């Protein structure tokens, strides 16, 4: 089933377009990894889907309805977002995760059902041991997991994430990707921007490459992650092998000095 359908989208800031998409659909149950160089328009695409930004022209449909016709309060029960927190305030982890219930109970006080969702989100992300800690005291890995737990407490069908594993070490990065995988397997649609192509390859069912505001390629990791595609996308030289264990493609970039000495 089609979840999102973007048609003739042009989007940007101060009326200058930085992203142009002729047509793109995202289906229920997809695990989409968006990759591409800095400034290519990845975050712009995610902001459009999160409705933080409105397109300059074109339409985005969510389940066949124009998203501008859906009230923000209703949309927030369908799609949640994990983006960098602008301000880290001294809330406890538990009360921050509880904010995720806001779209379901904006005015009324939280019901046992809400508390159940909060508890489950906390367990899902393995943050029970820090639930009384204040956000200001967390490491970046912990903060990211807390932020994801907050989005999970929102109980939405679709989760959008902007670089959830940047700045994290391999252990924490994989822990977060494992959470997303588990979530995807339970039926959620995941759309995430990733900088690490190999992580995208291992976890995502679909890769969208964006270059200079256009969709450059779109397909399964096996189809998309070829040395021709990656070299053209990032203007670099690289090798692509197959991970012998997972069978997924993985990318080795070749540094400039090595390239020179080998030629």
């Amino acid at each position, binding site marked *: 089933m089609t979840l999102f359908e973007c048609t003739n989208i042009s989007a940007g800031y101060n009326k200058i377009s930085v992203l142009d998409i002729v047509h793109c659909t995202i289906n229920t149950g997809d695990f989409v990894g968006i990759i591409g160089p800095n400034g290519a328009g990845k975050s712009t695409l995610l*902001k459009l889907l*999160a*409705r*933080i930004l409105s397109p300059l022209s074109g339409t985005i449909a969510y389940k066949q309805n124009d998203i501008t016709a859906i*009230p*923000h*309060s*209703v*949309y*927030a*029960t369908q*799609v*949640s*977002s994990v*983006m960098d*927190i*602008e*301000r880290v*305030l*001294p*809330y406890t982890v*538990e*009360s921050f995760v*509880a*904010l*995720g219930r*806001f*779209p379901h109970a*904006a*005015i009324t006080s*939280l019901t046992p059902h809400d*508390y159940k969702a*909060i*508890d489950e989100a906390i367990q899902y992300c393995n943050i029970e041991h820090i639930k009384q800690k204040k956000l*200001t*005291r967390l490491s970046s890995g912990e903060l990211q997991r807390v932020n994801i737990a907050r989005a999970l407490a*929102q109980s939405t069908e679709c989760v959008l994430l902007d670089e959830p594993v940047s700045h994290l070490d391999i252990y924490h990065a994989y822990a977060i990707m494992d959470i997303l995988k588990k979530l995807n397997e339970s039926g959620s649609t995941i759309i995430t921007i990733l900088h690490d192509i190999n992580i995208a390859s291992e976890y995502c069912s679909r890769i969208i490459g964006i270059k200079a505001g256009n969709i450059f390629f779109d397909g399964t990791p096996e189809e998309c992650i070829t040395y021709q595609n990656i070299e053209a996308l990032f203007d670099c030289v690289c090798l692509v092998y197959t991970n012998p264990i997972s069978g997924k493609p993985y990318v080795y970039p070749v540094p400039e000095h090595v390239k020179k000495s080998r030629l």
Partner: protein
Amino acid sequence: MKKFSINIGAILAVCAACVFIMAIALSIGASHVTLLSLISGTSSVATQIIMLRLLRVFMAFVVGAALAVSGCIFQALLKNPLAEPYTLGVSGGAAFGASIAIITASSAVSVYAFLGGVLTVIIIFFIARTMQFHPTAIILAGISLGFVLSSSVLLIFAFAKPDTIHKTLMWLSGDLSMAQYEHITLYATSILVLTAIALFFHRHLDIISFGTGFATTHGIGTVHIATLFWIASLATSITVAATGIIGFVGLIVPHAVRTIKANHAFLLPVSAIAGGTTLVVADTIGRSIVMPYEIPSGIITGFFGGIFFLILLLTRKDAL
């Protein structure tokens, strides 16, 4: 999971401290009448003096509470630790209005001040709406307009008689002895209503304080942001009409309370009580340290508030 308690114990403790401080404030003043003399004797003069002090203490409490609540809301809306009730230029507008009233020897200083404040907010509101309530844009617009208005006040001073300048300056520094006591019920009720509405939106404020994008993705539209903007602005304008400009309470009280707990279900009521108490203390100090003269409470809150906050900053820097 246990329910998030609003920490009834802490709130009760603050209330008790507040009542105790009020009792002390009622017992201090230019004439030696204490609460005890009210209980023991039945002198009608003592009763009258206490009633006068009660009115003043009550006014200080209401204004302090309103400023603290308004400060909480602005700090959430503008996502800036320096945001306070006067960031949008309400003080500049009110000062401008009040100066005109005092210079033209009009008796309706508070009406002029209120109108000055509200007109400023209306201008800022329309600018803010065009900027999609972008916090930095609102702050810069407020500061710019504030400069225009305070320069206008200085321009008025340049042509005014010295005694009117002195009177205006005392008003600008938040002098509770010049407050509008005849309308105290009106001030108190409107502040109470605005605070109650703000409390109703406490979860909105929690979400908004984490950022504009965060608010959007949780389903908060500009209608809620505009509502909260007006609650805080009106509360500030009312305080300005009642007592003039009293700085710092609206800035430091929310910060100090936030070091205990940041959730607005706690922050709003506790800030209100703490803000009210702070101003009662400041006013009591102001009218008792150099008796029979009075120091405007705006000066006291700025002076002692500044020192207190520096200490807090140095000792609890991680909590901010």
